[in-house]
């Protein structure tokens, strides 16, 4: 029974959204070759367009696509193996490859039993042996099914540059033998932390784009949220996944109030809180409550808890800064990073005054990990200004201006330097 063109288009779009990662993960696990797997999955989607129009959309589009993709992949590998060896092959239902064949294949572990193939793929893309830009690009490409062209656009590089980045990452996976399998029990906390870190990096890149003219790239934010929801579905007991989701929800709840109509940055103390998404904040609150139960909550749960203290406050002035400092103390234990210490200093300034906080920031300035981090001089400028030391504040604002590469933030800092104050304040 034929299906209408628009029904099929919708079904394909849905399947692309929901099933891409599953289909790719299954195919990659079968062929152990990421490039072949990708091509076969793409071809399967193309085949679906014709077949579903002719025969109707199948009950289980994911299963249909997986079968077709895997069948194609087996054919490709067989053809290549045949080309290499002059001995006719025995036709095997499962493709096996000789151990000493110098093929660039990815490692798989036949022994791990995973309910959802996507998990293996996510851990592969986010392996700490890959550079952060490679992790993000690979996750968007292989798990989210985003085209190389779209990924390039989101990271403001040329399509060929992004293509090269993806190729290099896949080469590293094959040559260094990064395995497509679930991390073991001892590795899991670090490896999960790496996955959450990649997703969070995607979110922050979209939420406060580090370069380019607009403050946000909503497509990256959406993919980060989508990935976190997938992870939540796949690992429902993990508190840190809950924590990440809560953090993204509460941060994104402020999306519409962060940027003025003219694209200018609006700071937290000036944002219109009535525009914040109350439903998202409530959901985040529930997740954080669950996450804080039990011993030693992790970094994402604690970051979310801090964000929620802000979100729960009716105004900037009414914020419970004592609670925030307490949470930062815990966070610093779970995550001894100078950036955390810097943010804690801002909270400390609200409780103990700018002079105490300034001393903390000056201590942090010499930390080599913060070199080139424009928030250091920006925060210092604020503290100096509240102490009436305007000349020193100006020097710091100028330094911050030199360091930031995001246009909207530059405009904000530039306005400060010129003494006008940002619109919205």
């Amino acid at each position, binding site marked *: 029974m034929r299906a209408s063109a628009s029904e099929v288009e919708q079904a394909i779009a849905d399947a692309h959204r929901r099933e891409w990662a599953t289909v790719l993960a299954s195919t990659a696990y079968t062929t152990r070759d990421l490039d072949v797997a990708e091509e076969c999955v793409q071809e399967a989607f193309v085949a679906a367009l014709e077949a579903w129009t002719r025969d109707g959309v199948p009950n289980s589009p994911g299963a249909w696509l997986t079968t077709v993709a895997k069948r194609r992949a087996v054919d490709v590998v067989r053809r290549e193996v045949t080309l290499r060896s002059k001995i006719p092959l025995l036709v095997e239902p499962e493709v096996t490859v000789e151990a000493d064949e110098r093929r660039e294949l990815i490692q798989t572990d036949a022994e791990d039993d995973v309910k959802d193939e996507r998990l293996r793929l996510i851990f592969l893309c986010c392996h700490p042996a890959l550079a952060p830009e490679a992790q993000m690009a690979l996750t968007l490409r292989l798990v989210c099914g985003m085209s190389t062209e779209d990924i390039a656009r989101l990271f403001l590089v040329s399509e060929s540059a992004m293509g090269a980045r993806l190729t290099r990452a896949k080469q590293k996976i094959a040559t260094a*033998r990064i395995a497509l399998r679930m991390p073991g029990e001892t590795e899991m906390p670090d490896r999960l932390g790496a996955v959450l870190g990649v997703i969070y990096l995607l979110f922050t890149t979209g939420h406060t784009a580090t370069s380019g003219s607009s403050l946000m790239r909503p497509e990256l934010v959406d993919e980060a949220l989508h990935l976190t929801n997938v992870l939540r579905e796949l690992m429902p007991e993990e508190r840190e996944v809950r924590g990440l989701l809560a953090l993204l929800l509460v941060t994104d709840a402020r999306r519409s109030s962060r940027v003025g109509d003219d694209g200018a940055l609006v700071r937290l103390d000036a944002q219109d809180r009535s525009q914040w998404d109350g439903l998202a904040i409530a959901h985040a609150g529930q997740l954080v409550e669950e996450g804080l139960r039990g011993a030693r909550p992790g970094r994402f749960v604690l970051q979310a808890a801090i964000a929620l203290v802000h979100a729960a406050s009716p105004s900037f002035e009414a914020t419970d800064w004592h609670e925030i400092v307490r949470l930062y103390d815990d966070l610093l234990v779970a995550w001894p990073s100078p950036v955390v210490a810097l943010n804690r200093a801002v909270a400390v300034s609200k409780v103990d005054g700018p002079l105490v906080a300034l001393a903390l920031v000056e201590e942090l300035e010499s930390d080599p990990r913060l070199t080139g981090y424009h928030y250091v001089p920006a925060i210092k400028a604020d503290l100096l200004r509240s102490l009436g030391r305007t000349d020193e504040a100006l020097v710091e604002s100028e330094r911050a201006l030199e360091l930031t590469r995001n246009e909207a933030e530059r405009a904000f800092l530039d306005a400060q330097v010129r003494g006008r104050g940002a619109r919205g304040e």
Partner: protein
Amino acid sequence: MAEYAILLYAPIVHEEADDGGAARAEHEQHSKDLQHDGAMIAAFALEPHTVSTSIRGDVITDGPFLETKEVIAGFCIIEASDLDEALKIAGTNPICHQGGGVEVRPVEDWVIPTRPGH
């Protein structure tokens, strides 16, 4: 199974720390452990970089190849099934908590011949 090189890097020390040979003892124990586990293929500790000589083209110069704050102290070839396993082994090298670090690189090819008379 594949072969990986574990390259040991250590900061250049201008004065040998007097620790009564404790650091060296750790390396010897680690070497025994790797051999016992069957992971080790070969291991070499190198003399200090001060007795290194480098060649670029035809030009011979005194000293290590790169002017850096850390230099290669030794290397070890191991066998592991994948990168995670190699990283796990490499991470246990005592150099990691003695102020240095390791680089893990897949080996493309290798040979340790048995030589007549040796």
